[in-house]
């Protein structure tokens, strides 16, 4: 069995598809530490614009929306994302057309599930993102999403925050969307040093007060709360950290 390992980029993935397509039982992954059986042959793939371009051209011809689906899927934190995308491409080629709506086929179900999880985190984070006001008046939001969605979520906040300067920082992937009040762009950001504005704690405490007051104590249903708002996101939510000061 051959395992093709990519660096996680889309270009390397499409290159791997080009190389692996004719191989029987080939696996594509960006996870180097996956368990290997003794008869596994490892092939490291480095991005090749020409090979990737050929796969993309073929794919775009058969289904011009497929690359968009795959772009979403490759942002997933799921370790099987490349393989799912690979199977999906094979299915499109076999059928010679879009397979998006063949909703009973396992490869379609699998890719749709991965995309669904990326999209739903994107939606959830529009609600769960928390900004702090810094001394300079800029807003800073650290977070750690399961999927690589920062450049997808930035336009949402740009539209809302207007001329406000803001930073959305994916602390896990060490990247951030930075907005100077006019344009936003992506940058690599490791650690950020933040000085809070004078009123930041006041509003944070008012928010915590609001959160505890609006709850109906007599009707506890923590299970539902945790279902809608998973515990792994709480780290960045002031209302779920430390009691009101």
């Amino acid at each position: 069995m051959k395992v093709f390992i990519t660096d996680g980029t889309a270009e390397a993935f499409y290159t791997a598809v080009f190389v692996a397509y004719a191989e029987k039982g080939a696996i594509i992954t960006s996870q180097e530490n996956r368990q290997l059986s003794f008869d596994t042959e490892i092939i490291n793939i480095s991005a090749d614009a020409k090979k990737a371009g050929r796969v993309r051209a073929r794919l775009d011809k058969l289904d011009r929306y497929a690359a968009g689906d795959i772009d979403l899927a490759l942002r997933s934190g799921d370790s099987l994302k490349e393989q799912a995308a690979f199977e999906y491409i094979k299915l499109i080629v076999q059928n010679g057309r879009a397979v998006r709506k063949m909703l009973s086929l396992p490869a379609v179900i699998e890719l749709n599930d991965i995309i669904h999880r990326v999209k739903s985190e994107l939606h959830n984070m529009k609600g769960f993102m928390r900004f702090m006001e810094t001394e300079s008046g800029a807003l800073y939001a650290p977070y750690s999403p399961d999927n690589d969605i920062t450049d997808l979520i930035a336009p949402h906040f740009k539209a809302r925050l207007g001329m406000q300067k803001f930073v959305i920082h994916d602390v896990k992937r060490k990247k951030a969307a930075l907005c100077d009040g006019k344009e936003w762009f992506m940058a690599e950001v490791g650690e950020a040093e933040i000085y809070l504005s004078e009123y930041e704690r006041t509003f944070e405490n008012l928010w915590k007060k609001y959160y505890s007051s609006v709850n109906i104590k007599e009707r506890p249903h923590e299970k539902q709360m945790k279902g809608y708002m998973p515990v792994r996101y709480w780290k960045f939510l002031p209302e779920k950290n430390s009691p009101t000061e």
Partner: protein
Amino acid sequence: MLDATTLQILTESAKYDVSCSSSGSKRANTADGLGNASVGGICHSFTPDGRCISLLKILMSNECVYDCEYCPNRRSADVRRAHISPDEICELTINFYKRNYIEGLFLSSAVSGTPDKTMELLTETVIKLRKQYNFNGYIHLKGIPHADSALAMKAAKYVDRMSYNIELPSEKSLKLLAPQKTKDSLITPMKKLQTAIVYDRENKVKKGKVLPAGQTTQMIVGASPESDGQILRLTEYLYRHMDLKRVYYSSYIPVVESPLLPATPTGLLREHRLYQADWLIRFYGFDVNEICGEGENLSTEYDPKCAWALRNMHLFPVEINKAPLEMLLRVPGIGAKSAYKIIEARRFAALDFDNLAKMRIVLKRARHFITCKGRFYGSEGGALKAALLIDEKSRTDEQLSLFSTPSVALSALTGEL
């Protein structure tokens, strides 16, 4: 700046209002403004009672001149009173919104002074928030009965949604339990707003639309003797003839001792069944007569769709590979998403039972009402009813356990108008 205690009092007075939705509006941001509205709505947090926080839901004041029998803020109640100014509300909204704590503001008030004075202050606040603070996020404003409807019309130009709470499902009960509110004081402004909404819709007004997210209302169930059939007929009227977006129900619980009110709480199951029936009327195109007779109550044993299917077994089972969309939507357990998946998938290949399971169509109830490639996988007759009952029991237990304590009852109270 606003102090924490005031915020607490005015939040606790507002929290029993059921509505928290921030959907239905796609208001855009302005050049130098803050905020926009997201048409699907966004939840920003969840409280330990499992409810979502979308809007900053507060009363401007809980000092009320009315004495509604069921309300904890009624004039004669012994509770802490507080109020906040328009500027304090605006500052709090802006600062919460900027930090992405909230999607917008849900502003209401007790009737403080006169209805006109109260409505004027509410209107002044939302106009200030839009014009002076340049806020373009979501605003839901509660209407004050008996206030000059010109004030409501003025406010409606600036907010996304308004609601007048009908409170009690008949005029007779309203007279008995909330004598200062009359049916006319609620319905008249709702109709005026409806006319304005319809005008904008028919003239395809794009900018400065009145109430882009429409109107909603809320009623207490079980404080008065109306049957589910009556309540649902009123609901259907509100949807079909007054263009309401949502009708909310809250089941009654005695918090206030009164000879006019029942001493026992209404089960939460009743509220739950009404929501299920409401959904069938609003979304699935059911006619109220198919669901519940006028003087009747909904079945407690089965959900309304299941009860309807059991009364209409001559229509089942339906073949999953052939049934039209309308019929798929009437199969118990199959909702809009599942119906869509089936319709799309079967265009490419005939579906068997295993396919449906892999597509994550919930088959626990549906299997008794469908065939796949002609094969039936369910039970019939007495065995069918037994199977459905067992399933229903496990579902409602799970859903209602959260409401099991009597003090939940508080949900009967809206804490405001």
